[in-house]
């Protein structure tokens, strides 16, 4: 009987897990975490900020030359901020709406060495930003807010020509799957 019971326990423990399956990264069955920025949060904030950015006068004509500045991650979570920036730059570059300067050291050195040659593009705008978080709780209910801030700076005049802030707020007692 003892052996049977142990076997039953082992079977039940093994049977408890949910096997991993592929999910649509834009679908409704993604994990929603209270303590971190989820992949769909970057997508939501990024696409909303993209919509705001292309509506600004700086993007009304032509393909301005854009350079990516720093995006400060001021949250407790460790992630690559290009998760946010790529949601903005990929559609813009592919649609021909911006000329995006490569940001690595070699490209920067080449541009510096070229001086003011007409055929070498120089940044007209720099996109920079910050990601912040705020956490609070009431009893067992936890709430996390992540704030995405972006600023577009016109290099020539050194002034901010566009700014946007998007909040993603999640509330609950535990992580879940779905909207």
């Amino acid at each position, binding site marked *: 009987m003892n052996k049977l019971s142990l076997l039953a326990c082992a079977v039940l423990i093994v*049977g408890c897990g949910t096997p991993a399956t592929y999910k649509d990264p834009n679908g409704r069955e993604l994990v929603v975490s209270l303590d971190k920025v989820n992949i769909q949060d970057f997508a*939501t904030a990024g696409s909303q900020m993209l919509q705001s950015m292309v509506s600004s006068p700086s993007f009304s004509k032509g393909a301005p030359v854009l350079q990516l500045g720093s995006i400060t991650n001021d949250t407790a979570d460790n992630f690559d901020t290009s998760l946010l920036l790529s949601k903005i730059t990929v559609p813009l570059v592919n649609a021909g709406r911006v000329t995006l300067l490569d940001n690595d050291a070699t490209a920067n050195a080449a541009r510096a060495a070229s001086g003011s040659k007409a055929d070498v593009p120089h940044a007209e705008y720099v996109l920079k930003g910050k990601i912040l978080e705020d956490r609070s709780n009431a009893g067992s209910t936890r709430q996390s807010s992540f704030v995405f801030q972006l600023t577009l700076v016109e290099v020539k005049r050194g002034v901010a020509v566009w700014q946007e802030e998007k909040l993603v707020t999640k509330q609950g007692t535990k992580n879940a799957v779905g909207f």
Partner: protein
Amino acid sequence: MKKILPLLALGLLAGCTTILETGDRIERGLTPPDAVNYATTKPEGGFSTQLNDNRIGNKIELLAARKSKTDGGYSRVQFDLRNGAYLSQTINVSFEWLAADGSVTESQPNWIVTPLEPGALTTITATALKAQSAECRLRLISR
């Protein structure tokens, strides 16, 4: 020991099941998932709808779709949505752009979650990135 092991097994078994705690969870368990609905702007103005989930009609009203052009000549559409129910609703929207021949030119596939209080209005604005994008197809799921 003999009594403890079956009890442990029962506990583990209980942990495996989904516990329906609230009315909302029970509803989710009993009803099929919400289908995707569409609203597409028309070249002559206005919009057409394709409702695949009739339940959304009792929750969200699509009041208007306004088309305009940006200074650079790109299409821009604004959809006005209203929560017509007596309860708070969450509407999830995404959209894609179509060329004049109906082909898809660009899309924003991720869902934007928009909670709406009873009676609340919201405006979804979509601006095209490509010049050939002419009509906007809004995708909606309630909840």
